[in-house]
């Protein structure tokens, strides 16, 4: 289905506001992404290109750049999250359960929500059988954790016109790939409707650090600018702020301090809470239904 068939255009202006529980005006949605970069393929992102600039396989330098995130960066981020009492949504390639089981186990032991992020870090367009990969990803994570994921992120947020239908069939209740609104929206599929939670890819460490090459402290600068406006607007209607972290980027020594102070400063405001995707979804399923019925 064409995206417009799944969701009609709706301006936020004039839309009835949703209501968060008493005392809450802005919800921060921390997202921590865990990936598997297969050495047999080009690496998902590159921090350094080979001499003369031509892509080379195997790409050992960038593979090890990512691997650092799983060996060291993740554990550093976990300490920060625990210190600030934040339970992020962990979106993971299902294959991470096979290659880095101790990392996934640490997430489960911390009570963090697991969200499916395909099997490994390959665009959905490149899969021979999208439906099978979606089912397999959901099954592996369910088997490993004892709980079927409720949410999904496409690798690199990629989707084809069919992806949402397969996701709904596989039991996915919410996605983060649609960055088109400040509020959750309900989108049609050929199966059951899915909720798109208000994600964004500007407050996102890959976009800011690996693609736009900002200085490390811009992690904090842009996030606080973003927060200031949403917080002011949240006096009139609830606002949501997703923040996306990858261990190989946000878990490195020169950025972790900026990550920590960003979360600490934002969460020190009255009426600001950190919820995972599952909790935002549960709230929206009740509140959104009430609004739309009104």
């Amino acid at each position, binding site marked *: 289905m064409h995206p417009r068939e799944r969701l009609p255009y709706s*301006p936020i202006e004039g839309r009835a506001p949703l209501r968060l529980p008493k005392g809450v005006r802005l919800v921060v949605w921390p997202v921590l992404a865990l990936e598997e970069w297969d050495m047999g393929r080009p690496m998902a992102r590159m921090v350094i290109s080979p001499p003369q600039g031509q892509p080379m396989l195997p790409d050992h330098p960038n593979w090890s750049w990512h691997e650092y995130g799983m060996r060291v960066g993740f554990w550093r981020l976990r300490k920060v999250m625990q210190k600030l009492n934040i339970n992020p949504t962990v979106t993971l390639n299902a294959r991470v359960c096979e290659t880095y089981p101790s990392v996934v186990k640490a997430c489960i032991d911390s009570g963090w929500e697991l969200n499916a992020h395909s099997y490994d870090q*390959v*665009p959905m*367009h490149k899969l021979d059988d999208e439906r099978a990969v979606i089912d397999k990803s959901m099954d592996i994570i369910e088997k490993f954790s004892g709980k079927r994921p409720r949410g999904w992120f496409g690798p690199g947020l*990629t*989707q084809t016109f069919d992806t949402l239908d397969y996701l709904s069939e596989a039991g996915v209740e919410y996605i983060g790939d649609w960055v088109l609104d400040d509020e959750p929206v309900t989108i049609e599929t050929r199966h059951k409707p899915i909720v798109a939670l208000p994600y964004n*890819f500007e407050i996102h460490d890959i976009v800011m650090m690996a*693609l736009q090459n900002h200085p490390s402290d811009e992690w904090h600068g842009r996030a606080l*600018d*973003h927060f200031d406006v949403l917080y002011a607007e949240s006096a009139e209607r609830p606002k949501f702020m997703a923040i996306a972290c990858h261990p190989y980027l946000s878990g490195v020594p020169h950025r972790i301090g900026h990550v920590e102070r960003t979360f600490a400063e934002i969460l020190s405001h009255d009426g600001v809470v950190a919820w995972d995707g599952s909790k935002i979804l549960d709230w929206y399923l009740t509140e959104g239904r009430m609004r739309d019925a009104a």
Partner: protein
Amino acid sequence: MASPMIPRERSDYSAIVDRPPLKLPGNARIVFWTIVNYEVWDIGKPMARQLLPAPTGVPLMPDVVHWGFHEYGMRVGCWRFFELYKKLGIKPTLAANARICEDYPRVAKEARDAGWEFMGHAYEQGPIHKETDQAGMINRTMDIMEKFCGKRPVGWLGPGLTQTLETPDLLAAAGVKYIGDWVYDDEPTVIKTTRGPLVTLPYTIECNDIPVMIIQHHNSDYLLKLVMDQFDRLYAESAKRAKFCTLAIHPYISGQPHRIKYLEQIYDYVNRHEGVLHWNGEQIFDWYRGVAKTEAAA
């Protein structure tokens, strides 16, 4: 058929130091020209801009994520713009794909009712070189906007400022009076077309959030710094001759929460100065045809 004119045939070289100064009315010395861009990104095509290429960087279609990125500007970001310009009492130029009148009538109506100037900006977002019937597309764009606004647009901006050699002739034939695509002067100029003279207004590709934020990846506050620097110099020079400071913005970029306050601060800064007019393109054109006595005014 004669081959179309190259730009030099349309406009002789002219040094600004050799030209008599233009004079704005009263004590005004500089015009601040705001251009807001509202577009339609068709999901059936590659998206106009990309923030997050797919893993391994290969372009893939459909590109739902960037469709959503742009759609945010129309669902949320543009309302931050409407509120700002209402508060400031500014009626900017709206460079809009004509298709917004069909796909986003709520947004187009808001701009029309707020008195914004509608400027032709192609039917939808894609380089004009790729149009199979450029004249047809231009006329259709102008007709749709005329029907929607009750008034034919006076100005035109190519999508991504693109033009082929024929474009100025086709625009003049469609009734366009001024264009913004020639960023080659600090002042309006008159260029030749096969259908009479056409005015170019001093538009900018630098004080524009697409290059600054999406292509050059500057920090959120950098557009403010850039425009302040641009304005300071033009303002100093405007003691001697009329100057124009132009700003082009898009709701999916400058309408993002982390950037909007810097856009607001641009106006706070500019408005602290004496002799600043907030005119849109049509107002600049109307003034210019008076002082330059150009036939394009006829």
